[in-house]
């Protein structure tokens, strides 16, 4: 009886191993077909990919649907092979988080310290970049890999704004800089307001071309209605702004003091 039981157990084990092998092979085959098929990468170009901030996502958002069918994660964060990827930008040799000082022009030599690791939500075991890099590698792709994710932490403008920093992709950060210059050039701050403690927060809806849609909404008033009116005038006057990375609502904070003063 014992031998029969052992034989049945062996058979079950073999069947189970066969089933697992078949299942894993099937999953890999499906993913391979998906990845190497034409048009896949055109749907996910680099600019879209690097705009993603997985840090703020719960790990469970990715795990159930994608992770099981992928190869196990490497022990270290993958660096795109030199022959396949262009050298990373000199100012950001590897993916890392950069914290901008509150006012780079004013205090270039005193950036705020980088956020402590524990202040950042734990990353999932494998983030989207890693997954895509693995898939490309598996597919034998030779196209340039996506640029390393460089996320800049944008500080809150004042004590009244939410504390901490917000991660912004390079693409968005570049647009924010352009938008800042653009709106600033349209904004008139009379001398009488320049040294007052005024701060106005405005939410502006932009369409894909950068045009202001509707009336900007003041989310925090300065306490001086004429200053607030001047801010609204500046935003509407500045329309269209440079085309934003995405149509929708964007937040602006207006402080009267010029850093150069």
């Amino acid at each position: 009886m014992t031998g029969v039981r052992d034989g049945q157990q062996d058979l079950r084990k073999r069947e189970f191993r066969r089933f697992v092998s078949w299942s894993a092979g099937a999953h890999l085959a499906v993913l391979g077909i998906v990845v190497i098929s034409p048009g896949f990468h055109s749907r996910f170009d680099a600019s879209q990919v690097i705009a993603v901030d997985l840090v703020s996502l719960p790990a469970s958002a990715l795990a159930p649907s994608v992770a099981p069918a992928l190869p196990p994660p490497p022990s270290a964060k993958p660096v795109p092979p030199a022959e396949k990827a262009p050298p990373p930008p000199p100012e950001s040799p590897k993916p890392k988080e950069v914290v901008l000082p509150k006012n780079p022009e004013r205090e270039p030599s005193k950036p705020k310290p980088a956020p402590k690791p524990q202040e950042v939500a734990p990353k999932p075991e494998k983030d989207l970049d890693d997954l895509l890099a693995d898939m490309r590698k598996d597919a034998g792709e030779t196209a340039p890999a996506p640029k390393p994710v460089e996320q800049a932490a944008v500080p809150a403008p004042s004590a009244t704004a939410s504390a901490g920093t917000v991660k912004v992709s390079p693409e968005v950060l570049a647009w924010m800089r352009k938008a800042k210059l653009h709106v600033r050039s349209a904004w008139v701050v009379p001398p009488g307001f320049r040294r007052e403690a005024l701060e106005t927060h405005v939410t502006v809806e932009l369409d894909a071309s950068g045009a202001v849609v509707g009336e900007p909404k003041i989310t925090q008033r300065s306490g001086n209605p004429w200053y607030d009116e001047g801010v609204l005038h500046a935003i509407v006057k500045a329309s269209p702004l440079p085309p934003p990375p995405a149509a929708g609502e964007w937040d602006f904070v207006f402080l009267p003091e010029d850093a150069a003063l």
Partner: protein
Amino acid sequence: MGLRVPPGGRSTLRSLAAALLALLAVGAAARAEDRAPIVIEGGKGKTYRIAVQRFADRSTPQSAERIARFREALQNALEFSGLFQRVPDGAFLGPLETESLDDGAQIACPDWTQIGADALLQGEIARDSEGFRVAFRVWDTARCRDLMRRRYVQKATANPEDVARRVADDVVEAFLGVRGVSSTEIAFVSDRSGNKEIYVMQADGSNVRKATANGSINNFPNWSPDGQAIAYTSYRQGNRPLIFLSSRGALRPGRLLQSDGRSQYRAVFDPIGERLAVVLSNGSSSEIVSVDTDGKDVRRITQSQSIEVSPTWSPDGKRIAFVSDRTGAPQIYVMSASGGDEKRLTYDGAYNTNPSWSPDGLWIAYETRVDGQFDIWLIDPEGKVNVPLVTNERSDEAPSWAPNSRHIVFSSTRRGRADLYMIDRDGSNLRRLTGDAGNNTAPNWGPFPR
């Protein structure tokens, strides 16, 4: 047996994967970037570009001279505000002259935004036997909405220039929330005629005229709150300084109060024009008293044996800041307007004098001696914040606030002889107001016209 993928299955899988990843990307980006505001520190512009339509003249009969004077004065007053830069008429795409100020009248805003105008000023005047009527409308051209509509009637005899300045000051209010000061006047002392007389000029330095012509020495002019009288110190009777009134209103001109044998150094109206703080001196010490506008009901305010001078009232009339040498050197103090409850305000500097309380009550401007010359500083009435406003290697003295608390006029010897300058409260926009002749000192900025 390989994996069987149904026809179209690959594209379906790709679509699903693409949709999933795209959703994740958009969601993550939106959540993160919603919290990342674009912080703009300081606008590039300091002045609004304003298009000024020619005010239509609805008078019967019309007067080309009147409307021309009005327009010129309006342009000058807007420029004096420091807030506006005019768009040349030649650039206009819209009408040169105001066509209608009716409530329903609209403007073609793109006509004005395309020429770079932030604002448009429209208006009309009409002078007849009933008065000098003016109406105007200020537009925010970018948002295409009007910021201000006003109409009022002045006396039929009003000067076109005075009416135009009033309009310009209101336009400033539409953008700053405080009136402009082109329609206000500044009294001051000048020796341009050979002796020190009291003069009055518009706040922009124009239209200088004499308020005294007694050939003696006159000093320390001070406006009544209604702008209808000036109290001043003069040696015109005898060899001792006495307080006089120069009036264009109800107050009786001439000596303010009878002499008790002491010198009368300076008189300062309270904020409602019912009493004056007066400095009296017996030679070795001086004290501050208050009197009514008839020179009666003399009340002693300070009780010290020291030299106490330079009173200035708080805007609510409840306190007086003054200078005392009770510690051996002149310093600024604050006390109750009826005397008592004295508190020393200045501790920095060995010689602080000439305080001037801002009409909004927030600041006291004063002069402080540094290396033998004077600078002008601001201190809050509680003495917590003390900041320099005007510093120069030459002397800057006798600060006096504009009625909108945005500007200060003072006397400076930075060009050699003494001239009057104005500066914004934040230290910007320094402008010289006099310079034609003589030494010009002791300015006192008058109230808004009523």
